[in-house]
């Protein structure tokens, strides 16, 4: 098939429209907003909280060890939420992964092999979620609500009443408390994984399909995106990342516990939303999520150091989340107005209608 260079549809230069509001710009602005908030937050704590300032660079970086497992879960959760689905089983998956790893190690299996096996178990768990969602068409909210109980109870059963602790030093240092200079090992691992996931979403074919599914699943299918496979694999990746979080958390505390993941799920979803990902899929950037991990994490740690109770810290986080979302909606709406204006300027008094005429 060949086309001549001149087009019968060529209708002159592009219309002179006002600078249109684009999805990219809107997303980028939110990422910038989160970054500014993060800097402002750190500045506030450094100025107003002497204990925080006295930690120094390495101390402050060290604080990240307390919340990066949440961040790992958030990275996986973001993939699933970008498609418009949700995974509520990630917390339980973390518990299960940590327990399985510890139990295998207790049985005399090499710790690194145990880590790999635990990650495989996590992938299988994610595959079960994905299978129910894609194959049987059950809403992911319900599927993962169910599997969360399954994973959690399996973790309790495997762990028994005396979960293992005191892992080999090499493992604890790499996964938990060790550091390279001022930078904790956990932060390095997180950074590597975050960059990989970011590239996955922003720059790969897979990520492109993932996001398009979130915007319009039917249209993605008509455009040739393999919707089932993409959804399925997003659950698998989410499971593996949740499993990895479970291993890091076990390494950090040098103990595995069957309920350790329970407290990680909701903060992880909070981070994803705070990072600018639309809970209904499509819109959002991984860079925003990555920044939000630190925003929420440092907020929490900073408040604790300031002397607030964890109760207060949780409340403040809730308030910040709501305020941030209001800010985001305000920013987006302002953009929306501009879009409407530009539409009107271009099409006269055209109203925006979602339906096509069925004359």
């Amino acid at each position: 098939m060949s086309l001549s260079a001149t087009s019968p549809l060529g209708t002159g230069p592009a219309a002179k429209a006002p600078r249109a509001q684009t999805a990219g710009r809107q997303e980028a602005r939110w990422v910038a907003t989160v970054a500014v908030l993060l800097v402002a937050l750190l500045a506030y704590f450094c100025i107003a909280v002497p204990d925080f300032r006295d930690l120094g660079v390495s101390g402050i970086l060290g604080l990240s060890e307390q919340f990066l497992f949440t961040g790992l879960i958030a990275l996986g959760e973001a993939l699933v939420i970008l498609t418009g689905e949700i995974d509520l089983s990630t917390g339980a998956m973390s518990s299960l992964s940590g327990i399985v790893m510890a139990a295998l190690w207790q049985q005399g299996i090499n710790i690194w092999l145990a880590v790999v096996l635990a990650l495989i178990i996590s992938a299988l768990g994610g595959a079960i979620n994905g299978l129910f969602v894609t194959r049987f068409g059950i809403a992911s909210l319900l599927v993962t609500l169910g599997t969360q109980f399954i994973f959690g109870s399996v973790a309790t059963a495997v762990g028994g009443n005396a979960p293992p602790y005191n892992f080999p030093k090499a493992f604890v240092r790499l996964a938990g408390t060790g550091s390279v200079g001022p930078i904790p090992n956990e932060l390095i691992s997180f950074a590597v994984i975050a960059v990989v996931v970011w590239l996955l979403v922003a720059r790969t074919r897979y990520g492109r399909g993932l996001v398009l599914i979130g915007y319009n699943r039917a249209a993605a299918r008509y455009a040739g995106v393999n919707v089932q496979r993409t959804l399925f694999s997003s659950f698998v990746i989410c499971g593996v990342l949740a499993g990895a979080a479970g291993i890091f958390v076990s390494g950090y505390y040098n103990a595995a516990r069957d309920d350790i993941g329970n407290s990680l799920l909701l903060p992880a979803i909070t981070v994803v939303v705070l990072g600018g990902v639309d809970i209904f899929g499509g819109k959002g950037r991984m860079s925003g999520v990555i920044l939000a991990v630190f925003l929420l994490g440092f907020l929490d740690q900073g408040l604790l150091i300031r002397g607030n109770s964890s109760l207060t810290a949780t409340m403040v986080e809730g308030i910040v989340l709501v305020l941030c979302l209001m800010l985001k909606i305000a920013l987006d709406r302002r953009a929306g107005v501009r879009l409407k204006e530009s539409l009107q300027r271009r099409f006269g008094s055209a109203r925006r209608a979602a339906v096509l005429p069925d004359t």
Partner: protein
Amino acid sequence: MPLLLVRNKGLRSQGPAATRGHPDRASGGDVDRRPRVGTPRVGTRYEGRSLTKSFDGATVLSQVDITFAPGEVHSVVGENGAGKSTLLKIMAGIYQPDSGQLVLGEERVGGLSPRSAQQLGVYLVPQEPALMQSLSVTENLFVGILRRGRLHFNVDWRSMKQEASAYLDRVGLDVDPEVRAEELSIAQQQLVECARALVHRCTVIYFDEPTSPLTAKEAGTLFEVMKNLRADGYTLGFISHRLDEVLAISDRVTVLRDGKRVSTALRSEVEGPSLVKAMVGRELTGRERVRPPFDATGRKEMLAVEDLTSEPSFAGVSFSVREGEVLGLAGLVGSGRTEIAETIFGLRPSDRGTVRLEGRRLEHRSPRACIDAGLVYLPEDRARHGIFADVEVERNVTAGVIPHLARYGPLVKPVAERDLAKQATDRTGVRMASLDTLIKALSGGNQQRAMLSRWLLAAPKVAIFDEPTRGVDVGAKDDIYHLVAQLAEGGLACVFISSELSELAITCDRVIAMYEGHVVGELSGAEVTDANLGSLIVGAHTI
């Protein structure tokens, strides 16, 4: 009535027994405790002045004037997409006009909603009855105006039932008012809709293609009802694709074409042929084919479909398309055209049959496999299946060729992607501020150009265009015809699905006609005319 910008005095003074403007109704109250006696006020003129309406930037109605007079059946005819339904929906308050006025009696009315239009006495009987299936006929009739009983908190079912029977008699429907709507046939439900208009004291009643789901006998019953209403002085509007019906029932006929009013005439002044001519207009007055006659010699068969079946949508469909040929697929909505296309493209499972591309059988078809093999499908429903509304034009255009965006390594190259999108949109002449514009900000025609760009990027050998000109401007339509012609010239085998017979006639080398899931005929070359197609797609045996 907060929704209405109407000064209601005139209506009230004319109105019977304060049907309108009653406090209960005015406050939107759901219960009406007044006794209902007497006949509703009939004899209202209802007028639309300079009505204009566009959707997504495509003008579907432009400066249309129309007057519906009491005691008359006024038919609106025109081709698909001429704006008939849109016009009636504006009159009935379902759509808001972009500009223009509605005048009921002597009063201007504005800001109508379906509910406020009903309160003013305007009712639209939809093409498919929209009754609440699990409620009784009585409940359906009185929904919104339930009668209050003596105790003021109960509902007076008995009087409503009696009244329902009376109204059902009026429309010649002999069913128990207690029966649930789902137990009625479509024709009976249609009549219930009609009775509903009467129960709501509506005197301006519109029928939007009411006969398309009915048999000839059922349609006859409906016409009797319409004639009785006309005799009682009701103001009636009617849309139908069947010209014989229009000629049989109408007192006045308005012809719309491409959203404009072509003519309004008394029934006695029009005849079948002149009406058809007015409807299709330019096509009959020498509208040119957009491409020269097709010569099949030496042209390879690109797509061959054999005995393709997917019950209950269609069965035993076979056809083939050659290199550089444009094959039309004609048929009414529901004849299985889109289903065939979607089955070929792997979006629906098939019961049996084969699809061959360049002689090679496509098994386990999926959209991706088809695209990679050189077969693309431009879907009919652009908003739902085509565009990603909140995504930039660039990514909309490249969405069909994602695997090719990262040919050398795992990562998409943004620069290469932009180049591809730029080339493709230049080819089809998408008018936009930049490739970063959200596609929903484009007009219908430009959105469709972007969709065409998407599939040109896939370098297809066979393309199925499903209603490619739906919801686009007249100008963009022409461009799309020429683009299809040009693509065929370049060797692309095209399947062109359309409800507009005139566009099939000017673009296609050969047309197969579908009727209720079966191929009922094939026309080629000079036989491809509106008239020949028209008789085929309505099932020649019914004429």
